């Protein structure tokens, strides 16, 4: 859902929006933020508040991809990556050490490396990030329990973007 539609003469292009939503669905995107001049679109799919979820609810999250578009937050758009600042006290973020595409599982159809509730040590591989056709195994680098998964398989992630929250 769009937070803001452009003022003035440009029509609100529903066809384009539909295409975008379909693209999000087929690629498993959860969050798209586009801005050009005055125009700003923010779309979000899937469960709204990952952080407050209880483990049982979130185990099947990866297969909720076909779920309808969730209502977008009415709050003003925040810059990408700043979600980290809302981390609950005591939780530690596992951040992306590179830019690329996030994969939760070693290959399609296989179970995810970790899910909410998984116990990890520093060496536990928690995901793959593909950069230039190379699949980089990402270790947790902390000891603890996965409290939240902040991205979905197929998501583009940037350097430093929080991927998981861990309760140490």
């Amino acid at each position: 859902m769009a937070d803001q539609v452009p003022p003035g003469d440009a029509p609100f292009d529903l066809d384009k929006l539909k295409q975008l939503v379909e693209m999000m669905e087929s690629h498993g995107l959860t969050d798209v933020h586009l801005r050009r001049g005055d125009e700003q679109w923010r779309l979000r799919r899937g469960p709204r508040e990952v952080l407050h979820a209880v483990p049982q609810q979130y185990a099947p999250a990866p297969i909720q991809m076909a779920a309808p578009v969730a209502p977008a937050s009415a709050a003003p758009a925040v810059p990408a990556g700043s979600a980290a600042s809302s981390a609950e006290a005591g939780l530690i973020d596992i951040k992306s050490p590179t830019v690329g595409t996030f994969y939760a599982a070693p290959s399609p159809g296989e179970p995810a490396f970790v899910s909410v509730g998984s116990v990890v040590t520093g060496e536990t591989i928690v995901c793959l990030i593909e950069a230039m056709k190379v699949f980089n195994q990402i270790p947790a680098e902390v000891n603890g329990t996965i409290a939240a998964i902040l991205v979905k398989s197929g998501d583009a992630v940037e350097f430093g973007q929080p991927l998981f929250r861990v309760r140490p």
Partner: protein
Amino acid sequence: MFQRILVANRGEIALRILRACREMGIETVAVCSEADRGSDYLKLASESICVGPAQAAGSYLLIKNIISAAEIGNVQAIHPGYGFLSENEHFAEVCRSCKIDFIGPSSEAMGKLGDKVTAKEIAKAAKVNLVPGSDGLIESEEAALEIAARIGYPVLIKATAGGGGKGMRVARNDISLKAGLKQAAVEAEKAFNNAGVYLEKYIENPRHVEVQIIADLHGEVVHLWERDCSSQRRHQKLIEESPAPNLPQAVREDICKAAVRLIKSASYTNAGTVEFIVDKDNQFYFIEVNARIQVEHPVTEMVTGVDLIQQQIRVAAGEPLPWKQKGIPCNGHAIEVRINAEDPDNDFRGSPGRITKLRVPGGHGVRWDSHVHEGYVVGPYYDSMIGKLIVHKPTRVEAIACMKRCLDEFIVEGIKTTIPLLKRILNNSAFVEGRMDTTFIEQQLLAK
């Protein structure tokens, strides 16, 4: 035409490219390091992606991360700006292998011109003058004297393995040449384990003159006239202008034509700069090609009216050049000064910090290209340039007057800048009279 481009740079030139794309209706993906994240200029991009830490080696210089950003950003082309990966032959090659257009020359052309020996061969084939010299190592004292007689004194004795001025000495007659050869060989042996030396004509007080060219993918090459960048401090350009003052019209045309010949014979495409040194008799000698857009491109834009960044993008997308050589004017006179966050009282060391107050001049004939603003924090990670101030007036005298009033208006507080030095240069008689060479700032203004 491209629908979406990634800008693989930061700061002023990233902003310059983002602006060009917005005017062309092209979407943009900006990359940033963690240090630049949240910068105002990134808001002009359709999307921005953090590609690494503040250190450029892990972000702006890391090919893998830039390419990944291009892939997840779904772009068709990458504009590298200047610096960083802009002249990295391998990067241009990787772009091609990933089916992303690199907005610049081919990696082959970059490679040929990046290699000194090949570049010299290309210049020779194109009948473009090189600094005369021994064309190889000096075999004997007699050979050296013969060469010196041919190219004329003064000559420069250079170590073939040298660098950084080591093993270099000037000889002004046969006697000092004989002595110098021996000393240079000993020094070179000591410093580089290689006693080989060669001779080159020593150009005293040279001017730095460069020619802007642009070439499309269909074999058309044009020049956009020359720039004088002689106002330097330790090989760092401080002030650039177009046209070059006190360069006779016939020489201007010759130097521009020479640049076009060279670019054609290198099968070079997109924008590039052919650098020359010019001696007191207005003889010019090819030095090298900068295979990218340059910091000082705006002075060329002002006198020709051509938007070079937009033109780079159009050429990369396969469009033919929209004009022939005759259609490119050179109107009036443009001067650019680089405003750097440097401390003139401390050997021009970088002066990072928060800009607490900023008043930028404006008005008739004034252009300001900068990503900074009041409250911006100049970090210690990247080069110190915080903006480029460009003026364009009918004559050089008026352009200087305009630049002086601009610098008088300029207020930057919180960091030190090169503005006081720039003011002194603009009041220096050698500069005012157009008698600059690459040494005058250090010799006349900075000598202790």
